[in-house]
C-alpha cells in the first residue's frame, strides 16, 4: 500500500466512524490489548453501562470465535479481522475470518435463522440453548455452549448481517464476515 492509498484508507475509516480496526494474527495477547483499548474508548463515551456491556460482549464473542474456530495457517498463525465503530447513531462490531468451505453451510444454518427472529424469539432460543444439556453430544464441533451467535444477536439492536466471500487464493477456504449493530 502506498501513502496515498493509506491516507484514503484512514480517511474512509474516519468517515465511517471507526474506533479501531485490527487485522492479522490473533492471539491471547492481541485480544487482551484490544480489550483494554475498547474498554478505555467506551469509558470515555457517555454510553450507558448496559450499552457498553453489549458492545464489549459482542467484541468478546467475535474475538473468541476467531480464536476457537480459525485454522492456523502454514506458519501456525490464526488470522482474523475486527472493527468497532460508531455510525448513524449506532455502534457496530464486525469481524472477518477464514472458514473451511465445508463449514460454510453449518455457519449459515446457525446465523441465518437469527436474522428473521423477533427479540422475544431470540431470547427464547437463547434460554432453550442455555438449558440444553445435550449440546456437547449434539454438536461435537462446537467449543463452547452454543450460545455465541445467540449472544451476539441478543445484544444487537437490529438483525445481524453476514457475508461469505469466496476468493481464489486458497480454494479450501472461504471468508466469513459478521456485523452486529448495537
Amino acid at each position, binding site marked *: 500500500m502506498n501513502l496515498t492509498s493509506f491516507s484514503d484508507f484512514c480517511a474512509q475509516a474516519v468517515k465511517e466512524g471507526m474506533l479501531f480496526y485490527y487485522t492479522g494474527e490473533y492471539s491471547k495477547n492481541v485480544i487482551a490489548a484490544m480489550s483494554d483499548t475498547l474498554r478505555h474508548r467506551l469509558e470515555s463515551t457517555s454510553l450507558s453501562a*448496559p450499552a457498553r*456491556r453489549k458492545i464489549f460482549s459482542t467484541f*468478546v464473542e467475535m474475538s473468541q470465535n476467531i480464536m476457537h474456530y480459525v485454522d492456523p495457517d502454514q506458519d501456525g498463525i490464526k488470522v482474523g479481522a475486527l472493527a468497532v465503530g460508531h455510525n448513524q447513531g449506532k455502534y457496530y462490531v464486525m469481524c472477518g475470518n477464514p472458514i473451511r468451505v465445508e463449514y460454510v453451510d453449518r455457519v449459515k444454518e446457525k446465523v441465518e435463522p437469527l436474522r428473521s427472529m423477533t427479540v422475544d424469539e431470540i431470547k427464547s432460543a437463547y434460554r432453550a440453548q442455555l*438449558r440444553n444439556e445435550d449440546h456437547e453430544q449434539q454438536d461435537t464441533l462446537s467449543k463452547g*455452549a452454543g*450460545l455465541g451467535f*445467540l*449472544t451476539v444477536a*441478543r445484544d444487537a439492536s437490529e438483525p445481524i448481517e453476514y457475508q461469505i466471500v469466496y476468493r481464489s487464493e486458497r480454494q479450501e477456504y472461504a471468508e466469513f464476515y459478521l456485523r452486529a449493530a448495537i
Partner: protein
Amino acid sequence: MQDLYIAPTAETPEVAFLFSEHKLTLQGESYPENAMAFYAPLRASLQSYLAQLSAQHPLEMHFSLKYFNSSSTKLLRSLISLLNDAARDGKQIIAHWYHDPEDDMMMEFGADLQDEFGALHLNVTPYEPA
C-alpha cells in the same frame, strides 16, 4: 474443607469460597477463552463441599458478575444447578444474584434462573451503582 481463594484477573472473577464460614462469593467479570478450564475445578470443589454440608449449616452464595461471556454463562448456570439440587435435598441455601440496575437483560437472566431452579432460594438484586 480448605477454603478456596482465587484472585481476580481481567478475564476471571475473584473466587472466595469460604467453606469454613459457609459463605461463597464470585465477583467481577468472567470471559476467559477457556471457561471450562476455569470453572471445572470450582464446580468440583462446590460439589464436594455440598455433599458434606450438614442441613444445620445455612450456606450463603453471592454471584456478583458485571459481565460474563457465553461459555461462562452455561457454567455459572451449572453452579446454580448444583445449589438447587442441594436445596432440594433439604440443605439451607440462600443464593444472591446481583445485576446492574440499568441492565434489563441481566435482570431477566437472573429471573430466568429463579424460574428454572425453583427449589433454590435465589434473590435477584440490583447491585449498588458504583
